[in-house]
């Protein structure tokens, strides 16, 4: 009892404390405006898959949004939808046409071509996002498939080196 009383005496004086959050709100507003602005100016939907590491380049042309073709070690994706399976960048022979192009990719590109015929304003460019370790053989096969379906103008997407 004695101890409790002693502690009771040491209780500090109660003070009204209010955190000054006006300046914090100011800082948050600035950060928010900056993030919103940078999010609206970038080509936001171009995000390579987790297994794709893009090559770097110092010089680059303007990047405009168009149909996205991606080559990862496991698959070929058209607009984020897998169209062909790869095994360490190697295609299954059953997926190859006689001319060496990729059959499922050809079909997917024909579908895209038909969609574009309905909306002729869109460009026939194609963005190619390939893993930096991909061998030229698979890249060329995919490019030939695209060219045969009328997508002969490509944009090789690269990470801009600082």
């Amino acid at each position, binding site marked *: 009892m004695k101890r409790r009383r002693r502690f009771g005496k040491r209780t500090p004086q109660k003070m009204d404390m209010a955190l000054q959050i006006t300046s914090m709100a100011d800082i948050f507003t600035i950060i928010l405006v900056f993030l*919103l602005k940078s999010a609206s100016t*970038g080509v936001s939907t171009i995000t390579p898959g987790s297994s794709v590491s893009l090559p770097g*380049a110092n010089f*680059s042309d303007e990047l405009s949004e168009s149909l996205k073709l991606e080559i990862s070690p496991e698959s070929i994706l058209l607009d984020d939808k897998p169209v062909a399976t790869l095994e360490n960048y190697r295609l299954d022979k059953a997926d190859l046409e006689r001319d060496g192009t990729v059959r499922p990719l050809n079909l997917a590109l024909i579908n895209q071509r038909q969609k574009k015929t309905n909306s002729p304003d869109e460009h026939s460019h194609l963005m190619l996002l390939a893993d930096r370790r991909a*061998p030229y053989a698979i890249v060329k096969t995919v*490019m030939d498939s695209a060219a045969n379906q009328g997508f002969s103008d490509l944009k090789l997407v690269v990470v*801009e080196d600082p």
Partner: protein
Amino acid sequence: MSFIRKRHAGEQDFELNLASIIDCFTVLITYLLVSASFISLGALDVSVASSVPSNEAPPPTPPVDVTVLIGRSGKYTVKLTGPKNESVSLPSKEGQPDLTALTDYIGNLKTQWSLEAITLAADDGVEYHEVVKTVEVMRKLVTAVTFGDRP
């Protein structure tokens, strides 16, 4: 002179409750930071040789056909056909493709022939980043780079 304002009758001290605004801002900032991409992407314009005609304007017809072949060992072979027939090998430098030698050689050709288009090919095993580095060097010098078959 006194700066203390006299409170009029009916006037009340009020304070905007910023706590809920801060909460909203915190959620928004977290979402934007998570979804933000901090890498800057660019593109290199190329074309692929095809039998199907393109909608775009064809690349300028070069006075001399120049084909750059990237070898698996990093060796470049530059083949000239047309008014001048020549094949030049640019060996690799410390196992890496000699981009400086290629820049100098293509730069000389550009001065000599007003070169505006180059065809590029590579061995099957050449990695994509080496192809991109070569495209980058050539795009600095000429306006059109076309991927073609090996000569």
